[in-house]
């Protein structure tokens, strides 16, 4: 595991407005894995994602691809992380293609109307993978929530970064689109990307993730394969619920059931 570790953190801590949001987090994540980051509201999931991408100042050391994150210039960091923020915000009604093309910004393609052939190809590839080619010229504000989430995903794929960090990519989507998004991310992981997904949906986490990280009060309290990381004990201690557990088509099934 350590031999192929792509992203590591040692003693990671984040303090925001005088409050310790994350404490002493150490992890080591391998390429080609889909990692689910779960935990109750306020556990620090989003902050951990931001810290890993270098978007908030943190204590401790983060290494990506063998380089210390703090030693990398902004552009180079941007090439290593595809970051999908919560909510798929787009402030102006831009065409979907221009949004996806922003994924090439870290590669120097700052103007979507002047892409190099290499950037154009990356944009088209990303649009094909996320299945948004059909509405590439439509304004994102005219798209449905599901379509918009796919455009956001395509933008992240267009970075072609070794690490994808996605903050609640499935929230506010219908079940069909949730599966759709998770399958795209799973496919990216299978092609060798390290994908870290913040989610509240333990069912999706159990089914799609190779590893699950459980965060509680800013600490990493459990990690491993879904069945172990989300053991009955962890469900009780961290989430204060019991869950229905089963296996279906050789995938782990976890359905939150009752409060404890």
């Amino acid at each position: 595991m350590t031999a192929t570790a792509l992203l590591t953190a040692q003693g990671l801590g984040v303090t925001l407005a005088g409050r310790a949001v994350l404490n002493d987090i150490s992890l080591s994540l391998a390429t080609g894995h889909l990692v689910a980051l779960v935990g109750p509201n306020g556990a620090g999931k989003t902050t951990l994602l931001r810290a890993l991408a270098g978007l908030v100042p943190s204590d401790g050391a983060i290494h990506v691809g063998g380089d210390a994150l703090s030693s990398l210039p902004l552009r180079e960091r941007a090439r290593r992380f595809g970051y999908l923020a919560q909510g798929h915000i787009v402030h102006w009604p831009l065409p979907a293609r221009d949004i996806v093309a922003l994924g090439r910004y870290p590669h120097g393609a700052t103007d979507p109307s002047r892409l190099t052939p290499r950037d154009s190809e990356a944009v088209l590839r990303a649009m094909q993978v996320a299945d948004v080619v059909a509405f590439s010229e439509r304004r994102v504000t005219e798209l449905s929530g599901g379509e918009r989430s796919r455009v956001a995903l395509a933008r992240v794929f267009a970075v072609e970064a070794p690490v994808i960090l996605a903050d609640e990519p499935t929230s506010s989507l219908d079940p069909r689109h949730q599966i759709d998004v998770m399958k795209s991310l799973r496919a990216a992981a299978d092609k060798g990307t390290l994908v870290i997904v913040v989610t509240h949906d333990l069912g999706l986490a159990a089914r799609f993730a190779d590893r699950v990280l459980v965060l509680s009060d800013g600490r990493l309290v459990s990690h491993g394969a879904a069945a172990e990381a989300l053991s009955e004990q962890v469900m009780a201690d961290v989430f204060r619920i019991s869950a229905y557990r089963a296996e279906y088509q050789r995938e782990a099934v976890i359905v939150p059931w009752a409060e404890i």
Partner: protein
Amino acid sequence: MNAQNVTVTADVTARRRASVMGALVVLVVLLALVSLGIGPVRLSPLTVIDALFGGGSDVQQVIVREIRLPRTILGCAIGAILGLSGAALQGLLRNPLASPSLFGAPQSAAFGAVLVIALGLADVRSYALPVAAILAAFVSVFALLAIAGRNAGLLILILAGLAISSLAGAATALVMNLSSNPFVVLEIAFWLLGSLEDRSFRHVVLALPFIVAGAIILFQQRNAFRALSLGEETAQSLGVDVDRLRLLVITGVALGVGGAVAVSGTIGFIGLVAPHLMRPLIGHDPARLLVPSALTGAALLLAADIAVRIIPSTSDIKVGVLTSIIGVPFFLYLIMRERRALGGGVA
């Protein structure tokens, strides 16, 4: 659809943008010629061109090249920097109601300049004037963004802008109130209304370097504005240094608006109106709006400055008064259009 089709549709929109830009350039040139021809002695555009390039009579040459040209150059440059500043602020804050005048930048710049005049630190033709105006504009925009905080909604920005422009207005009033020299007060009062009358090349030299520097700084940030469409966090994850960008935009706006106010007084609402006129034609891409907004700003101010010379009245109407009279109802219309966002408190 394949890669080629995607590129073709992009080309069509690019052609459309190019023709809008071409039309705007032609409009600005025509308005500049009309502006050079209007005054106590009316000259046709052809005579103006002739005189401009050394033809025509000596009198015509003096009228066009020495009396009217500075006014036209300033109208063009100031209108352009106001339009550009508005588009840049709207891009930075991802907010269609952002503009220098709603944020109190010109009012603060005026205060800086008035203070220098009233204290007798400099006469109206020294560089101390634009420098003071620029510093005051910088402080005001910086304070506004610091008070409003990151990801501020429409309501907070507008309230903070209202507070800052009120403060700047009150401070200016106080300076005039305490000033012992009635002539200075009168001079300040007229200048505050905003005007391009009787401007000489000395004024052009005073303002233009700052306006050009501000314009260059703002224009260089264009692609970062596009990345900011996805929010500050995502823009940062794409490699945009958002803190640096903010500082550069504040600096660019302060240089441009401060330089402009130092020679023309406060001319409001062009920065608000220009980007809005361009969005239906150019689209909403904040990067592509910058140059068209600057051209539109130049056209608007030139047109307003022509109008104040044509409109029959007992005394001169100041161009700043005219732009506000037209701009404020437009602002009200925008509030009506955006009221759902305002009411919800989300930008």
